[in-house]
């Protein structure tokens, strides 16, 4: 009958005595911990995915974009006036930049790609021929296009996995001609399956040499830059400096272009998921609060019901702190049941979800600890008042108390 085991025994008694309320506490605390886990798992999986994507390029890549990412609605109008990035500007940067390993101008156009009557709307990616320095695109079939083909405006195309599957359905695509809009391109390669990122399909894509695509687009949407090793910040400064110079911006004027790093991209993601985070944090708080109030209610009933027992314990010399500890332990055990359940269910769900979305399963075990700590602490907080009440009972009155 040690005091810890005693508390455990009493807690189990409470569970049997108030099964519905206990179930309620378990559910609310479980929900809270689940929300916490979901929150952290989503954030971490996103981060892991993005990092995987970026780091598969082998370096920290820098994006120069026509417009900075939209963070506020008012940004949309402001950014409308920003000029496109011209071919001349790209050439200028190519000449000036000292810290760039590669400068790859890129276009993006959603266009129908057609082969023998089958058609699919794909993201057409115009690239200069050194695109493999900044992108990691392992091949399934054939080859990538060459600098020579780019320079001679050859109309060749590398298909993404999804386009290949839709249009060719297992047949050999190499040397076949496909229509991209109104131009015919010859297939030279197929990239392996890449999956999705944040709901956007990375496989319904084709890559074409930018020089050939210039007939369609004179400007570029963005420029992918790869810094020399460890020179990411230098490169960023450099790009800003030269492009502002080229565009003759005065010092008081803002950049009229966007510069984005892996970190910046993650920031944007975090921004985008902020509403979700807030909602989840709300669920965490609410779950703990509601569970805690019911917990307090159960414990107050238990104190009333066990008043005589408390009197007996005091009469044989229990220190008030020992009485308080008994109820606090009960509170912690009851509250932690939900935490445990939440961790268990959270583990399971996060595993299933990450499999379903083919995200890497990045279950952070510290969150399990955090969830348990959270519910345990809520037990202490909401158990405090009943425990104090029990500890302060007058022994004589408690002994003669008859529980109705």
């Amino acid at each position, binding site marked *: *009958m040690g005091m810890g085991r005693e508390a455990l025994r009493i807690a189990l*008694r409470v569970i049997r005595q108030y099964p519905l309320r206990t179930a309620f506490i378990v559910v609310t605390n479980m929900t809270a911990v689940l929300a916490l886990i979901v929150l952290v798992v989503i954030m971490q999986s996103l981060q892991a995915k993005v990092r995987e994507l970026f780091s598969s390029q082998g370096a920290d890549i820098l994006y120069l974009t026509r417009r900075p990412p939209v963070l506020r609605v008012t940004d949309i109008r402001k950014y409308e006036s920003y000029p496109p990035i011209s071919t001349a500007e790209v050439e200028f940067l190519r000449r000036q930049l000292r810290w760039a390993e590669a400068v790859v101008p890129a276009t993006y156009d959603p266009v129908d790609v057609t082969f023998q009557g089958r058609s699919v709307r794909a993201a057409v990616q115009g690239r200069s021929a050194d695109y493999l320095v900044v992108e990691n695109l392992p091949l399934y079939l054939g080859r990538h296009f060459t600098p020579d083909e780019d320079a001679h405006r050859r109309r060749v195309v590398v298909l993404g996995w999804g386009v290949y599957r839709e249009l060719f359905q297992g047949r050999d695509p190499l040397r076949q001609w496909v229509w991209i809009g109104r131009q015919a391109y010859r297939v030279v390669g197929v990239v392996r399956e890449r999956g999705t990122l944040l709901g956007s399909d990375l496989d319904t894509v084709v890559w074409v040499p930018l020089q050939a695509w210039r007939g369609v687009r004179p400007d570029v949407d963005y420029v992918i830059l790869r810094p020399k090793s460890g020179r990411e910040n230098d490169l960023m400064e450099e790009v800003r400096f030269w492009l502002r110079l080229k565009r003759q911006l005065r010092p008081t004027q803002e950049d009229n272009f966007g510069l984005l790093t892996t970190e910046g991209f993650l920031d944007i993601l975090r921004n985008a998921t902020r509403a979700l985070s807030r909602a989840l944090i709300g669920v965490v708080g609410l779950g703990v609060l509601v569970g805690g109030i019911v917990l307090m209610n159960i414990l107050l009933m238990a104190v009333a019901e066990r008043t005589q027992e408390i*009197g007996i314990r005091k*009469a044989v*010399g229990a*220190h008030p702190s020992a009485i308080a500890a008994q109820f606090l332990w009960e509170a912690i055990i009851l509250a932690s049941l939900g935490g445990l359940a939440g961790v268990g269910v959270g583990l399971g769900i996060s595993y299933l979800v990450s499999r379903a979305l083919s995200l890497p399963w990045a279950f952070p075990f510290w969150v399990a600890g955090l969830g348990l700590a959270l519910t345990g602490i809520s037990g202490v907080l909401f158990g405090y008042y009943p425990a104090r009440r029990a500890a302060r009972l007058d*022994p004589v009155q408690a002994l003669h108390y008859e529980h109705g």
Partner: protein
Amino acid sequence: MGTVSAFNLHAGNPETAVSPSDAGPLIRLEGVVRIYGSGSADRVVALDGVDLVIRAGEMVAVMGPSGSGKSTLLHIIGCLDRPTQGRYFLRGRPVEDLGEDELARIRNREIGFVFQAFHLLPRATALENVELPLVYARVPPEERRRRAMEALAMVDLSHRARHRPSELSGGERQRVAIARALVNRPSVILADEPTGNLDSRSSDEVMRILQDLWRQGQTIVVVTHERDVAKYCQRVVLMRDGRIVGDIPAGEL
């Protein structure tokens, strides 16, 4: 109850051992007043200036009609309650000045309570009930078990150690309560109408156990309004309306 003599009550607990050489009395009350309620309507003077001295080794009966303040007196002696006025010295130390730590320690080590309604924990076994004071005295489990079994043997209930109170007769329950009261070798056992809920045979049993304990040197105070119970004692204190109105040897009853 032949097992009682096998146990030397005060061996190995010098802290609470009461030797004859102790100069002062074990318990001394001076002008103790206990008033319940505060308004004039609900104000009850339960004790109205009680002076009382109890020496170590005495067995005292406190007698008086219902409502005369016997229980209140016992609660104050047992540090479950505090006087509204007056002073209480336990082994020469004024109890008024003591903090919660010290009071809990006194209830645990110095006092053994026995109540009319037994007040055992219903879900704990007899053994666990007897162990309870030792739990709060932080006695390690094996020693706790051993001492609790010893105490149960003293009240002749070794064979009932694993039973819950609901499985015991009234007399057996009160003997468990006595075992619990003596397990920590207290300076004094305070029994508030210990036979009030018992038939006459069980009452005799319980009183004989208390008397045997007294013979071994245990100080005992028994509250009762039964003459037959008081006869087991050595000295009788008579109460009425919160005052002590007589203090006589039991033989004079």
